[in-house]
């Protein structure tokens, strides 16, 4: 239990660093928030009034405390473009993005884990060299560029998959309670919408996953290669275990744990990278929301996205850590 407590404390600490960063962004780097809030044509008197209302005449540390209080109450500020509370915007935009990241993560895991395991087993072989070259190529592909290319070729020229959006025209009326269409459509028993949602997810998820998969293969290989050198592999061989048995029954479980920690981190990074694909595929979501906010110079909305992605990142890490701990057979001995 000490381990879980330690992870939680670390996450709370990280949350404060995150709050400090977003405070820095919205109150210091971006210039005087009162001037931003008052709009371009406000007079000096109005700005002074706003400064007082917003507590900007107080010392920076007090301002930070007030800011933390607001955020922790769920107040992410008001978009000065839409005049809407940012928190409700973000809550609406988050499900489609999480859905996208979830599918991209599945692709990532489905490729990274087996390839990482096999290249670790056959380290130094032609196969390993080939995969490593593929990994380096994948790590050099601009996500947004490959998204455009895939969209043009697979969806545009070959018409294999839909070009853009979340659902086809026929299903445009669909809406669900959670905002996760894959889940909502299943709950409603509507396979048609489920498949349509999935079809719309394939290309963006694939484009989003490429870079992360390249890193994922490398991470898994590194984690597994050390396991293959351990004596328990020798003993398993001496016991007469077959190579597949050694790989899947013995090595995989031991090597996967450190790798899964990195995949947990990738979840948050992927959510951040949705800014590069959602706009291209015309999908609603937090990434597209951020890009729009950037073009409208809506600094508070941008900072809110930074904060929310950061929080999702911390939560994903915490959940993975706790899950690995709970699943770990040796929890009595840990921490």
């Amino acid at each position, binding site marked *: 239990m000490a381990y879980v407590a330690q992870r939680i404390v670390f996450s709370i600490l990280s949350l404060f660093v995150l709050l400090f*960063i977003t405070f820095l962004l919205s109150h210091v780097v971006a210039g005087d928030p009162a001037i931003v809030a008052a709009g371009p044509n406000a007079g000096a008197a109005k700005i002074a009034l706003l400064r007082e209302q917003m507590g900007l005449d107080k010392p920076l540390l007090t301002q930070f405390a007030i800011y933390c209080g607001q955020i922790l109450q769920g107040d992410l500020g008001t978009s000065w473009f839409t005049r809407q509370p940012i928190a409700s915007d973000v809550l609406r935009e988050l499900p489609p993005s999480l859905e996208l990241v979830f599918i991209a993560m599945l692709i990532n895991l489905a490729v990274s884990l087996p390839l990482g395991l096999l290249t670790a087993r056959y*380290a130094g072989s032609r196969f390993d060299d080939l995969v490593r070259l593929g990994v380096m190529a994948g790590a050099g592909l*601009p996500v947004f*560029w490959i998204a455009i290319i895939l969209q043009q070729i697979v969806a545009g020229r070959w018409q294999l998959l839909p070009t853009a959006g979340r659902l086809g025209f026929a299903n445009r009326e669909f809406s669900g309670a959670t905002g996760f269409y894959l889940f909502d459509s299943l709950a409603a028993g509507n396979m048609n919408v489920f498949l349509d949602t999935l079809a719309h997810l394939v290309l963006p998820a694939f484009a989003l996953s490429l870079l992360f998969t390249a890193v994922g293969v490398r991470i898994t290989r590194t984690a597994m290669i050390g396991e293959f050198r351990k004596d328990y592999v020798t003993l398993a061989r001496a016991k007469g275990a077959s190579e597949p048995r050694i790989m899947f029954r013995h090595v995989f479980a031991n090597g996967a744990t450190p790798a899964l920690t990195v995949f947990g981190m990738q979840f948050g990074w992927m959510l951040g990278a949705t800014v590069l694909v959602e*706009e*291209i595929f015309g999908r609603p979501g937090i990434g597209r929301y951020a890009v729009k906010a950037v073009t409208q110079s809506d600094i508070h909305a941008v900072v809110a996205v930074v904060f929310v992605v950061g929080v999702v990142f911390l939560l994903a890490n915490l959940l993975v850590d706790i899950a690995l701990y709970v699943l770990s057979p040796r929890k009595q001995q840990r921490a």
Partner: protein
Amino acid sequence: MLRLLTLPKTNIERAAVILALIVILVAIIGPFVTPYDPMQISFRSKLLAPSSMHWFGTDGSGRDVLSRLLHGAQLTLSATFFVLIAGVVIGCTIGIFSAFVGGAADNALMRLADIWLGFPPLILALGFASALGASLQAAIWALVFSWWPNYARLSRMVTADILSQKFIASADALGVPLHRKVFRYVIPNAFDVLIVQVTLDISAVMLAISGLSFIGVGAQIPQPEWGAMIADGRSYVANGWWIVLAPGVAIFLTALAFNVIGDMLRRELDPTSRRR
């Protein structure tokens, strides 16, 4: 630099070194050898397909894509190298300082770096860049801001390792001054490790710069930065595929070349990561 030519073991590595040298050369002299003015708008020659006149075609405003690509090499690469150099300088200063001070300050700084390092770098840079106001400079500083902890961690590790070795203790006994210890022992020893890491980071930083430019917080259209060129070409992709293809391939090949070189350098310079 000369050593770089003797290290490659495979044809892929040789090709990567040659490609990287070409890209660097283009980044230096590109602007002087471009066939056309990269900013010259000409509606009469817009959306021309690749030909002997315009090898890579022209874009939606009739600008020569090849000329923009050559100028872009300088813009994209100099931005990338600036981020890496500034990141190394800031990160190493903090890292080396942290290792020398030790104790609680060291602990706190490294914890901070750990947390910082974790946050999605792209989104952090996005926030910073848009807070500064969208421009290539903002994007560069934003990336420095989110990249320094990598090098702080790395340099602290190397420094702590060196400080724990015996020859430092004898240097202490001889009264070697601090700055001499840093410049004589720490930096030369950290150099190999850092150069490997920096080379491997080139592609990531370049992708981040062009990504930020693509979504509009970095270089602004019509600047010939490669990411911004892709953003600009998007609206013509149906009848001018070359506008998007050329800068994308340029980013991809450059990133791949530096990844291969980084992998090679790691094999040759970093004894801890040697494969069997």
